[in-house]
């Protein structure tokens, strides 16, 4: 009994001294609570659908950041992983009747294999060469999809997948928990030894190699890990939409994920995910607002692009890092982050300038 009490007290101590003091962490905690508690306030199908899709795309954006942000392997064809997983998931579910909890991870394994197929030839390529080559893979695959309509359904795609779960509410919790869980895992990966190595490769591959790191192996690992997480997103998407079609491989989707990520702020995992959670609901909000003025021409995408352009013009590091920089300052002595209005550091009591 006393033990539990101690733990609860410790929890609150941590909450008070480590979470509440920093706006970024506080916002994250509030976001998680809000996300999990949202269905208590509304069970509107439309609302839940948007959050579900947003969660799925947040996983997708996070996986892009893992590869392109952290490891610096600029991927312009990230939709490949999404699409491959969606198709594999759909095939397993439709023909072999695998339930979603099996078909989605196996679809992700398919995406890992795709990651290897793309990763191996791309290992020798650098920078722009790599970026532009990866762009080609989903397009080539689209050609193959159209070539074997018997298997892939051609432009119809594969439809009739079983539902993710029995109700929209369950779908919501599955995707939300997946998003939070996988986001945490990705964040932990970047914080681990592997993550540091990946980061080192991004910063200076030659130096990393000189330090005895098999950079080839780690780059392939990055492709595979990223493929896996993107694949989970693709599989969830296929089961939620109950369709895996050629649109999952479109160039537009590859571009979209880069936009979300760079907008949110690369090299942080939470930045791209937050980017999706800002931009995607915003687009839907615009749909609702503009829907009230039918006389206006369709201008959602225009506003979206203008917003992205202006944001990057003034916050080239991305939106989230910009906001965090305003809200939090680093202690000049102990490098601990503090809320912006503190005059003295919360740890070492040094004067904040």
């Amino acid at each position, binding site marked *: 009994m006393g033990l539990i009490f101690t733990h609860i007290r410790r929890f609150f101590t941590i909450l008070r001294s480590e979470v509440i003091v920093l706006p970024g962490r506080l916002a994250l905690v509030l976001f998680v609570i809000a996300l999990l508690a949202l269905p208590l306030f509304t069970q509107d199908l439309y609302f839940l659908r948007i959050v579900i899709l947003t969660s799925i795309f947040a996983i997708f954006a996070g996986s892009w950041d893992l590869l392109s942000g952290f490891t610096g392997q600029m991927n312009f064809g990230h939709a490949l992983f999404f699409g491959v997983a969606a198709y594999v998931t759909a095939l397993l579910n439709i023909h072999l009747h695998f339930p979603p909890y099996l078909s989605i991870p196996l679809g992700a394994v398919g995406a890992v294999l795709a990651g290897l197929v793309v990763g191996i030839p791309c290992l020798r390529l650098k920078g722009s060469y790599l970026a532009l080559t990866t762009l080609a893979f989903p397009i080539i695959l689209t050609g193959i999809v159209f*070539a074997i309509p018997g298997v892939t359904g051609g432009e119809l795609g594969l*439809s009739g997948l079983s539902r993710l779960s029995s109700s929209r509410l369950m779908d919501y919790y599955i995707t939300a928990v997946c998003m939070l869980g996988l986001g945490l895992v990705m964040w932990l990966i970047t914080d681990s030894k592997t993550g540091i190595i990946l980061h080192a490769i991004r910063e200076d591959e030659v130096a990393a190699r000189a330090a005895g790191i098999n950079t080839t192996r780690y780059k392939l690992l990055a492709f595979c890990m990223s493929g896996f997480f993107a694949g989970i997103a693709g599989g969830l998407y296929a089961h939620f*939409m109950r369709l895996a079609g050629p649109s999952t491989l479109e160039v537009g989707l590859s571009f979209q994920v880069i936009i979300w990520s760079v907008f949110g702020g690369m090299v942080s995992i939470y930045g791209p995910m937050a980017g999706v959670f800002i931009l995607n609901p915003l687009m839907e909000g615009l*749909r609702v607002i503009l829907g009230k003025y039918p006389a206006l021409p369709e201008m959602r995408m225009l506003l979206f692009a203008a917003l992205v352009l202006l944001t990057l013009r003034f916050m080239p590091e991305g939106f989230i890092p910009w906001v965090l920089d305003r809200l939090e300052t680093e202690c000049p002595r102990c490098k601990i982050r503090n809320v912006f209005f503190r005059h003295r550091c919360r740890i070492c009591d040094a004067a904040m300038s």
Partner: protein
Amino acid sequence: MNTRRFIVCLAAGFLLFAGLCPSAWAADSIKIGILGPMSFTQGEGHWNGATMAAEEINAAGGVKVGDKMMQIELVKVDTNEFLSIPDATNAVEMAISRNKVDFLVGGFRTEAVMVMQDIAMDAKKIFIGCGAATVEICTRVTENYDRYKYWFRLTPINAGYLGKVDFTLLGTVGAIMKKTLGLETLKVAVVAEKAAWAEGIVAAAEKTLPEKMGMEIVGIWRPSPVAKDCSAELAAIQRAGAHIVFTTFSSSVGLTFAKQMGELKIPAAAVGINVEAQKSGFWEATNGAGDYVLTINTYAPVKITESTLPFYTKYQERFKEAPNYTAGTYDALQILKAAVEEAGTLDSDALVPFLEKTDLVGTAGREVFDAAHDITWGPGYVTGLGTQWQEGKIQCVWPYNWEGITYEGTVPYKLAPWVVEAWKKKD
């Protein structure tokens, strides 16, 4: 400074919230969601056709539900389906759960329609499809009636029927060419976009042309539906000495192909399906190179039924273009009105039997649904048309004495002068 920014943020947040809040709706109207890619010709067709029908019905007092007269209120649902499938699903979900539409009408890109269909069926909303021709969308109704019974396809006739009309058109043109040019065996180049819906037509062509129609196939080309250049295909077709190019296009490749074919004056007659050639903008987009292209169509300035011509002229006057088949939303609204008035309710389950019994003489013909909730094709029902571009005008050239049918206003088929020139000399 910071305070001001804070206030701006607050105001923006409030606006967003106000926008997201459902507003009160007038209870005495029937809400119909019109689904389509509204920035594109197809979506405009959906919306325009529906607008005309709704205005006419409302002007005549509305729809009689039980003993109450209700007005039709259209909800424009921009699905943006060409560019984004999630967008399409979000838009439909919003129309259903937020705008509380009673019925859904429209849809175009098959991949999107299948997803939207699922959402509509989940919500048990009647969905009348006006755009996708794929057979599979309707086979879902027969496979799982209880779930998909709320789906009906009004236009176009399904890909299978399109194939039938296709071969009839090919036969008709073939006969004309044989007669006027004195050709013995006709050489046909089959060009079909690489899409699942076209597979059946290509397979049928491979069998039917040589075996039943006595034509020789000189080659089968399958360009991408969005190919931007068909010069290689055309060069090969010309080398092969084809008399007829049998086309199967629903996407932009149809325009590219027709344009380049006309510019190069390839001596062959283009016959078949070319959805781009159904649009009024086709002439301008090809700079007139699309002359003499023949395609299956739904509307033309001919008297298919009593209501065709009034609809066609009114539409053309008002929207400055000819209606294409997505404007069949006009008939969809009439069908809904008839069914609702007969059933006296807006309840989907109660309406399905009445919709199944639909037998309405609409603008495209006599509209009757079959067991798969698909529009029935055939003489005496919706037949489809063959229209040809003749000097910048869409002219109906088929049915011309087919099963005893010739719609008033139909004109004879014309061969392009360069086709005549190229093949006449060889005699």
